[in-house]
């Protein structure tokens, strides 16, 4: 449990970078692209490969149910956890990554307060700490294996969520555009979303979906040169 959760301090962060989203209910990861004002979620579950800035994972408090931009209060993982800003905020993590060229090649953030996501991220962090000793100054190249189903509850409350199964497949020199920069405002990626693990209170009919989906891309072989 390298990403301990017993912290108690405050901080703020702000981000307008693009994002990838891990859907804990489906165990899938998508890249949100925006073109001509239209959002498209590209499923990159099977092809996911990225340099992930595990060293600089941020932790803190997140509220995605704001009706607008999510509210996040985050600090670097070596700082103490900020004070919880409201009852609606839940503990979560954010990590910045650089996708492989085949997945878009750009810098994105991945954030979630789903417990199953945190579980997968914590395992990645453990693996990072173990491997970093022999890879000083480098950052890990990470792929996503089959997600791990986590069943909770009984009866009508029984549900299955998925923990991401990240695997470090290599280490590369830190890309020039993947530098940690603490963000100081209180909001994050405007369109970022998260998936609750608890059965949500029904306040409105569920949406059906109007986001266009692109064809899948094939998984590529690990290659240090992908990240420039």
């Amino acid at each position, binding site marked *: 449990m390298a990403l301990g959760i017993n912290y108690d301090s405050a901080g703020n962060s702000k981000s307008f970078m693009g994002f990838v989203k891990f859907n804990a209910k489906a165990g899938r990861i998508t890249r949100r692209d925006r073109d001509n004002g239209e959002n498209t*979620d590209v499923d990159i579950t099977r092809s996911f490969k990225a340099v992930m800035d595990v060293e600089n994972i941020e932790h803190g408090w997140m509220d995605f149910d704001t009706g607008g931009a999510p509210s996040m209060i985050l600090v670097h993982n070596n700082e103490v956890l900020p004070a919880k800003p409201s009852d609606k905020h839940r503990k979560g993590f954010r990590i910045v990554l650089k996708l492989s060229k085949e997945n878009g090649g750009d810098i994105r953030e991945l954030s979630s307060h789903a417990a199953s996501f945190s579980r997968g991220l914590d395992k990645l962090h453990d693996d990072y700490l173990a491997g970093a000793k022999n890879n000083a100054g480098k950052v890990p190249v990470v792929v996503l294996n089959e997600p791990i*189903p986590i069943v909770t509850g009984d009866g009508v409350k029984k549900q299955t969520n998925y923990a991401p199964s990240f695997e470090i497949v290599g280490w590369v020199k830190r890309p020039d555009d993947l530098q940690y920069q603490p963000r100081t405002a209180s909001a994050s990626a405007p369109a970022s979303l998260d998936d609750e693990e608890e059965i949500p209170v029904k306040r409105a009919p*569920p949406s*059906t979906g109007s986001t*266009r*989906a692109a064809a899948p891309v094939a998984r590529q072989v690990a290659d240090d040169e992908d990240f420039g």
Partner: protein
Amino acid sequence: MDNPFETHGLEHLSPSSCNLFIGSPAMFVLEKLLKRRSPVGCAAHRGTSVEDGVVAGLSGSTDQEAVDVAKKKFASLTVMSGDPRKEKEEGAIADFVKMGLSELRSYGQPTSFQGKIEYKVDGLLVPLIGFYDMEWADHGILIDLKTSHALPSKISTNHARQVALYCAARSGNLDARLCYVTPKKVAVYKLENIRQHVEALGTIALTIQRFLSISKDPHELASLVVPDVDSFYFSDPLARQAAFETWKL
């Protein structure tokens, strides 16, 4: 407790039967309980035919071969049809198939087509069954193909429930999508809130069960509903006649 489905000769429910109950309880009674089947319209046959053509195309056939498969299927399904829309639908088959393939060829060859699913709902005395259109297990994607002459801007609720059920029955880890095809446009939408849509379908199925439990006599159940004879459910003259004979309306 007696099984009311057994009483009324129903072995299962499906997304389409649930949607029928929602859209027209009277037609549900007419078809499922009084066993008076209405003719299938050419629009429904178009969907079946286009799907066959697209499947052929994704299985290695050229666009033209796929169109031929679809046209042949449509001809066989509508050979006895008196539907005035037959000619229009027939003329659009080729464009539907080509448009669908233009989008779905990039997914590669599906790993399975027309797979049967079965899903059990707590408290429901029959299973929900259905058949999904196509799945790419290597990508974890399941797609249902829908044809229409107008491209919708989002997934309809009925379609969402239908595909959510397939997804729930297959694997909670599937990326479910709806591919809407018109003769000129195509759009693939990602299905959201799968769990809630499956729950909704379960609620609807249990409502049907309660309705069937009211009486073992289908005519008594018919007396509890009234047909909207202006709806498309009764647009076919035979369906309209059946409604008149049953309800005197």
